């Protein structure tokens, strides 16, 4: 290691290092040149507190709390507008999801953010049978604020539901279990193993 790289290592901000180690595609963060084209290209940009360009600067400035508890990464809809325009080819979308995932692993994600709540419901729904049960997913979304508002939401969206059924995109029979993959328990084993490996990897690298 040259004196230069040794110095860089010594003074490298720890949060940046933490992100590089723990966040999927995190090693790209240092490549950002703060041009701002991602911030300007995000169609949901005005709904976030910090667009990607700001998040990357905050990581480098060591603003650990502000970044990980932010709801910004959870607002990303994976439209990829930022990725196609980034002059440095940063996989921005993936970093956003990586950060969100890391925050959740640490249990400091913004608890009331609807996307993070929905992601969890979606995941649990899908894990049960290896396929998403559209009907139950829809219902759990409508009933998230209690029974009465759930009824109201459901009635409001009844037309949509009927159309989905007509187009054979949703079956009322899903309510009684629904379809799944051939070997759901096999799939669960695969996922569990992957999670185990991931956990071991994180353990190895330290937090």
């Amino acid at each position: 290691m040259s004196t230069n790289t040794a110095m860089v290592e010594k003074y490298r901000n720890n949060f940046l290092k933490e992100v590089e180690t723990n966040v999927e595609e995190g090693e790209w963060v240092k490549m950002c040149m703060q041009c701002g084209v991602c911030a300007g290209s995000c169609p949901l940009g005005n709904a976030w507190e910090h667009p990607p360009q700001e998040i990357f600067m905050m990581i480098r400035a060591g603003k650990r709390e502000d970044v990980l508890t932010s709801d910004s990464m959870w607002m990303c809809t994976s439209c990829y507008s930022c990725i196609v325009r980034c002059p440095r080819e940063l996989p921005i979308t993936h970093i956003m999801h990586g950060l969100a995932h890391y925050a959740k692993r640490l249990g400091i994600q913004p608890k009331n953010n609807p996307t993070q709540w929905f992601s969890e419901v979606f995941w649990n729904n899908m894990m049960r049978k290896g396929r998403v049960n559209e009907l139950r997913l829809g219902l759990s979304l409508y009933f998230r604020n209690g029974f009465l508002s759930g009824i109201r939401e459901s009635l409001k969206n009844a037309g949509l539901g009927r159309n989905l059924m007509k187009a054979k995109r949703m079956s009322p029979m899903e309510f009684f279990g629904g379809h799944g993959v051939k070997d759901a328990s096999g799939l669960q084993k695969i996922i569990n193993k992957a999670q185990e490996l991931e956990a071991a990897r994180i353990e190895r690298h330290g937090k």
Partner: protein
Amino acid sequence: MSDIVASNETIVVVGGGISGMTSALEAAECGKQVILIEKNPSLGGRVAQLYRYFPKMCHPTCGMEINLRRAKHNRNLRILTMAEVTEVTGEAGDYSLKVALKPRFINENCTACGECEKVVEAEFDDEFNYGMSKRKGAYLPYNMAYPQRYVIDERIIGTEDAGKAKDACKYDAIDLDMQVEEIELKAGAIIWATGWQPYDAGKIQPYGYDRYENVITNVEFERMADPQGPTDGRLIRPSDGREARKVAFIQCAGSRDRNHLRHCSRICCMSSLKQTHYVREAYPEDGMVDVYYIDMRTIDRLEDFYKKVQDDEKVAFIKSKVASITKDKGDNPVLHGVDTEGGKRYETPYDMVVLATGMQPSVNRDAFPIDIVINQDGFIEPDEKNGAIFASGSAADALDVNRSVQHATAAALRAIQVVNKAAGIGV
């Protein structure tokens, strides 16, 4: 053309822009035999298409005039225009070249009286003005063109126009039977000064250069500012001819971008700063400019130029790579993005937008007539493997005129050392 004498003590310079002219003149003035090969009908290159020069804001024609005078008076220098090198073989101190000479259809008798131009009817896009105006099928490339000799566009050969032109010429200068000629040359060293071309702005999809008339490039803006240019020096919108008083510049349009050119083109920050003067001089009262940038790169002493522009309160600098351009009902380009200093979103209309497009090598990496070392950006590397083939000016890197000329002089010195050795002169 059989009267060209060349030996392994000859230096061939390819490209007659400011760099090629400098290399050729420096070597010829040192007493070396030099042949300058230019593919266009005239010398001058891209510099001739600029209105004014940074940093002194002088007119490029002035420097050109000096160089042309040097060229005219030097008997060691031979200039071939409409010529392209098609093949190079051999090694340092002993190269053979094949050169294709395209027909000009007009010989040395031409006095540039312009009678042929008057009678020809066919019109084509004027390359000199980047297609912003038309020129006739018989034309002088530009006012100061050297040689001062007209050209017949090969597209009118065989049409009635060609005959009309021939009949109009009082000096028997038009020869419609000219053919492509191929000649062979010897050379001890070759200087490659083929220069640059503007990056194709149409490839930057979100900026809509190919869709919005009032989004133009910096090279087009140079032509627009020139009193002898396509708009007689008026800064006006291509869509409706209205005065462009509120102008935005977008820096790094296609440069420093892995989707386009990876390198920093190095001159476009300075060239936009220069062009803010054009706007402010044309409209001193209410002309206003916004420059959108990632970071302004005005190297060493050029920083003073930047500071002066910053002092003008009608010129603002916004640190942001513009995300996209749309167009409103009045044909105004609207810039969208986020100001990275403060995070404010903008959606700002302008009369006209100038894209500061970058410099790309003019010769494609696969098109060199001999295998030489070229870097990832397409510029020629200084490398021993290149033998006695030396790059000069912006064929070697994105350089301004000052640095191009320095580089060109160095290339001349290297070439001189090689031919001296061939001549048995101690080095």
